[in-house]
């Protein structure tokens, strides 16, 4: 792998960061999303609060339908006209939800970039609608997607032109530099390649290169390694950590894989049915998970490093968004549910070290297979 280029990381077109150290780069408060469906309005996100600090990797973890992708699509304003987004999204003191389309287009790519598991298809129908509606936005705004019909050089070059105002040889030089930075061997020779000529891991690197073209301060990575083999996943996660260090970027890593969170992230927010149920530092959450859902997820995991006698799955299934119970959404599956859990939603209680839990009956016992022991 070639050494990273030593170019200055500060962006001249960026407003000087107004925040003192310790201020979050991104503050999301009370974010709700409603979707217009044939059955009426359905709430997909029920008031999400989160902060992303400079240089932090935040893991957003949960099962399918938990709202982790919707949260990020809402932050990026990519959900399209059939979604109603309310709440606060403050990025560098700017309210992203209030920006006009032109300003928002500049923010996407230049300030906040996003990469996906697979740019073309998705398992989540909500995604697909969002993406279809916003196809043009995607193509214009350097949200990393690859088109099969154009060469790597052209696609990355276009993004460089849009975000950096470079043309001709300068754009080409910058393109090569970016491809080199993300670890693509012999980048000059790759410029004429099409995506189908590269492996999945290499295409993901190209997408990361496109995301980096505008030197974003926040990168949202939505399941970036889910479609990749483990040895390639390890390479991409290593790359993401290295880029965070080199470019002092903040990263939101969306994943369903708790092990990826444990190895990659600084902080983690666990989502269930459109809400964050527990958050804190990765060390705290994994050593001492309190929310029954977080605990259930950890107890469900088979382990590679030791033989586990039995898994302890969470009983039942995730309720559909239009069938959520009145109280805590996890109550029907929760082995520790109390009477009040049925009646109302537990509020998020914040403790020390940024640890927050939304549960009437948090647990402190060891996990059922002794997940904490070394």
């Amino acid at each position, binding site marked *: 792998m070639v050494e990273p280029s030593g170019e200055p990381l500060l962006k001249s077109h960026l407003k000087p960061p107004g925040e003192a150290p310790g201020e979050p780069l991104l503050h999301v408060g009370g974010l709700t999303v409603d979707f217009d469906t044939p059955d009426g309005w359905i709430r997909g996100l029920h008031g999400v609060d989160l902060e992303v600090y400079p240089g932090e990797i935040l893991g957003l973890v949960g*099962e*399918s339908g938990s709202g982790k992708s919707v949260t990020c699509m809402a932050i990026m304003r990519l959900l399209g006209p059939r979604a109603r987004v309310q709440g606060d999204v403050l990025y560098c003191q700017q309210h992203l939800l209030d920006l006009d389309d032109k300003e928002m287009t500049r923010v996407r790519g230049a300030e906040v970039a996003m990469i996906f598991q697979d740019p073309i298809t998705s398992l989540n129908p909500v995604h697909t609608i969002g993406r279809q509606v916003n196809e043009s936005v995607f193509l214009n705004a350097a949200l990393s997607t690859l088109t099969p019909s154009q060469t790597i050089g052209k696609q990355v070059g276009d993004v460089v032109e849009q975000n950096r105002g470079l043309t001709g040889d300068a754009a080409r030089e910058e393109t090569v530099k970016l491809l080199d930075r993300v670890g693509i*061997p012999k980048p000059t020779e790759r410029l004429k390649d099409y995506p189908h000529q590269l*492996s999945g*891991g*290499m295409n993901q690197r190209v997408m990361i290169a496109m995301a980096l073209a505008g030197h974003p301060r926040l990168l949202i990575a939505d399941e970036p390694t889910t479609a990749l*083999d*483990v*040895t*390639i*996943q*390890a*390479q991409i*996660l*290593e790359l993401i950590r290295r880029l965070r260090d080199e470019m002092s970027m903040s990263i939101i890593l969306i994943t*369903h*894989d*708790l*092990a*990826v*969170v*444990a*190895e*990659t992230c600084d902080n983690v927010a666990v989502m269930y049915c459109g809400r964050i149920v527990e958050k804190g530092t*990765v*060390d705290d959450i*994994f*050593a001492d998970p309190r929310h029954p859902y977080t605990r*259930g*997820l*950890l*107890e*469900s*995991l*088979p*382990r*590679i*490093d030791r*033989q*586990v006698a*039995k*898994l*302890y*799955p*969470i*009983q039942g*299934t*995730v309720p559909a968004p239009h069938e959520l119970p009145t109280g805590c959404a996890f109550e029907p599956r929760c082995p520790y549910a109390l009477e009040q859990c049925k009646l109302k939603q537990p509020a998020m209680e914040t403790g020390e070290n940024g640890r927050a839990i939304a549960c009437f009956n948090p647990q402190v016992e060891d996990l059922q297979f002794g*997940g904490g022991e*070394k």
Partner: protein
Amino acid sequence: MSAASTGEREADGPENRRPLLEVEDLQRHFKLRGTGGFFGKKAVLKAVDGITFTVGKGETLGIVGESGCGKTTAARLVLNMVTPTSGRVVFQGREITGLSPSDWRTLRREMQYVFQDPLGALDPRMRIIDQVTEPLLIHQIGAPSERQDKTAELLHSVGLQDHTFGRYPHELSGGQRQRVVLARALILEPQLLICDEPVSALDVSIQAQVINLLGELRHRLNLTMLFISHDLSIVRHICDRVAVMYLGKIVELADGNALFDSPAHPYTRALLSAIPVPEPGLKRERMLLEGDPPSPIDPPSGCRFRTRCPVVKPVCGERTPELKLLKDGQLVACHVSHGEA
């Protein structure tokens, strides 16, 4: 017979207990269309290139490897869904390669297959109970009322309740659908169950339910399984022995604990070290492999792993390492591990 299969036979236990499934030097090469020009030689993709393994009665053998390593083709070869280029498959002591379609029809009762995608495996227009009963009808087993009872009993035992029986696949969750697929595979009481990534499409909490169910059914029915997965954590949990494949060849085959606790092949070691563990700060030896696996159309000479191998020696490019016994039933195909380099 090669040294590999002899060693494995010994590891399997007493000679008189013949394994349920024996696979010998099985190969499948695909000629690629549109290559080689008018007179030229067509390019050949060696999806499975000479694999040998056995599965004993009641045993679960895991086959692991990254995409394109040939693990799914291996399973399909055993079931004759793909015809082998060469090699033998012996089931219950009888060679089954090259059997006629009608012989296969009766044999299919004994060997069942569970796919990754349950929705694709189920008929969208058939009620759950009818789908699970169908194999009994096809094989003309039991009277109609017996069939209904048997189906209901099995659906209960895979954890489905009465109210789901009359539903259609789209009305069920992913985990429930995979339970239906399992019930349909088990209704014929097969000797061998081949599972290809059976839980990969499921969420973690549901995945654990299905894994537990598989483990329970395995013990209760004394099932023999061939379990194909890219997820090594699941394989460790469920399999007795594990075969690791790389570019069409088995590079290591060993007892599960031996393989995971003391992997001998450099590829196995790299693969294991790449898997993240849900324990922050846990210091593990990391072997980050560079680059991608080479194309199976034009694999490297000698050892196929040598282009990415951290301990590669000159001999690795010259001779193909044989899968042979290292210790205690641990078969490894590596010149370096065997001290030959």
